């Protein structure tokens, strides 16, 4: 049975590019994506959690080793997601897009990546780290 943290961690291997900083950024990416997930409307949050479980279980029937998504290796995960995308089933595409969107948001918003993409803001405009850290609490409780 998948939980959001395990699932997002497994999904990160599919969504994020392979760059040297990736490992250092992974924990923060996961924490931020979980915060975003936790703030979604309660009904959507419940649907996503159910979809994560089904997606994970669906991996058992997939030919790459016949195991849950969260226990596949990265190559198998990538093939699985690509196969699902080829099926062109709207709700599944929406699910993949939202999950990858949350992770991509968290990843590309990490200032450590910005020099690689040429993004920079004048230092005198940035007031770094001033929204208190409790807002980055990775808990996903929605009740």
């Amino acid at each position, binding site marked *: 049975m998948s939980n959001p943290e395990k699932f997002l961690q497994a999904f990160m291997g599919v969504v994020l590019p392979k760059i040297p900083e990736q490992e250092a950024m992974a924990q923060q990416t996961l924490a931020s994506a979980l915060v975003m997930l936790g703030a979604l409307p*309660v009904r959507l949050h419940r649907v996503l959690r159910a979809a994560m479980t089904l997606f994970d279980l669906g991996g058992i029937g997939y030919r790459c080793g016949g195991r849950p998504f969260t226990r596949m290796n990265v190559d198998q995960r*990538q093939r699985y997601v690509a196969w699902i995308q080829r099926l062109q089933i709207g709700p599944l595409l929406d699910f993949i897009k939202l999950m990858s*969107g949350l992770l991509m*948001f968290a990843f590309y918003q990490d200032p450590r990546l910005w020099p690689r993409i040429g993004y920079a*803001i004048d230092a*005198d*405009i940035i007031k770094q780290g001033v*929204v208190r850290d409790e807002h980055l609490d990775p808990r996903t409780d929605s009740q």
Partner: protein
Amino acid sequence: MNIWTPEQIHSEVREQCDVCVVGTGAGGAVSGAILAQAGLDVLFLEEGPMVKTEAFSSDARRSIPTLYRHSGITPIAGRRGSRVIFSEGRCVGGSTVLNAGICYRTPRHVLEQWQTQEGLKDFGPEGLDPYFQQVEQRISVQEVPRAFWSRDTFLLEEGAKRLGWHTTPIKRNIRLEEGAASCLSQCSTLCTQGCPTATKQSALITYMEDALAAGARLYTGARAESVLTEPLKNRRQARGVQGWIVDRNGKTGKRAPIPFHVQAKAVVLAGGAIQTPHLLFRSGLSTRNGQVGQNLYLHPNTKIIGLFDEPIEAWRGSIQGLQVDQFADEGCTFFITFLPPGIMAFGLPMHGEPAYEVMQQYRHLAHWGVLIEDTHSGAVLPARGPDPNIRYDITPADRERILTGIERLATLFFSAGARRLLLPLKRLHEIRQPEEVRKIKGLDPPVSDIDLFTVHAMGTCRMSASVARGVVNPSQEHFEVDRLFISDASVFPGPTRVNPMLTIMALATRAATNLLQRTF
């Protein structure tokens, strides 16, 4: 001290005031400030946190979940699989803290239509002029000087000129003082996370400051659960608001929920066109005519990302300075916006290595949108639980309008020199040649295949002179509940066709002025 946060509250809250204002955005802040400055005892209830200018962060991973309701992702579903993602603020100052600060007066023909359709006698441009003037002065509305335009604003202008399309300069609520230039030349991407330089004159640093200076009180992290009423002959009368102290996600959390009760002589609801009808339903205050929650308009919009050969660095310069209004009469307007890296990546049609390849060209990206005037309305329906049940269909006519808008926007991009476009369509991610623009309609995509967004929700508690058609009367007072006023975009009789902030603020000024004539 007149501001309370959830961290300071450990037991049940009981308060009394003259006027309780629910919400501190464009409508609530203006109403509360005018009433407090007139000497009334005003108490604000705001579900979100108070984040001051010096605390705004360039790190969207922190600011988005803090300042936006549902991290900016509220899906609004409709028939045929349509989905519009709605974003709104949930913080002191509301969406005025997070928008681009575009300030349009309601177009003349829209006001005249409202006047005729709903019997709103003083609603012509002349009748509302004093209120618009008052707001424009307070929030410093002015055209964005060309010196502060971003590079892609010039590209938009050049592209439109080549096509012979009409453009109009944009007015924004900005304070241009010495030293402000460094802000406007550098922070296009930060507007949506709270202006860190106080250049944008949001309600947080204008009307809320006025209100608090005049003695108003503010509870943050206070979610209104219901409006309290009492019988009055064969009607009802508002007598306060009750609710819960909530956490950063607007939820009561696992600890024992802390209730609050505010006793008031009048109540002003200003939670926006989604939350206000939801609160009325929770309070059992829907009108006999069934109009609460109906007539929801969204101005659905969609975006194209364009890649140019030249580095644009579109984050340098004012977020918007110009719009293309050649097709405004057909309900279609083109605008510029630019997004910080994370939000840009969120909207990409691909992930993994292909997405990274696009993001490496971030300096070459432009992000333009098309805003559609909807011809059909949706509804906020009664719902159990904390989130409203929202329905909004994209009709075949609106779908056609959206696809025409995407085609024209793609044409504009190529005319401006873009070499590759990323489209908001599930089955057509990109095109690279002007000839490929015809593929957009040729594909005949269903509405479920189009990525749609909105930040403009309007019209769920319609103002009308007719009891049969409206939720509030021309003074913005509930038809069936005395002393319950509504002061947000929900009272609009229809879509404004332009950014609604200035209309909300002008109507809030008018409503508060009228409220002051009442004796309690």
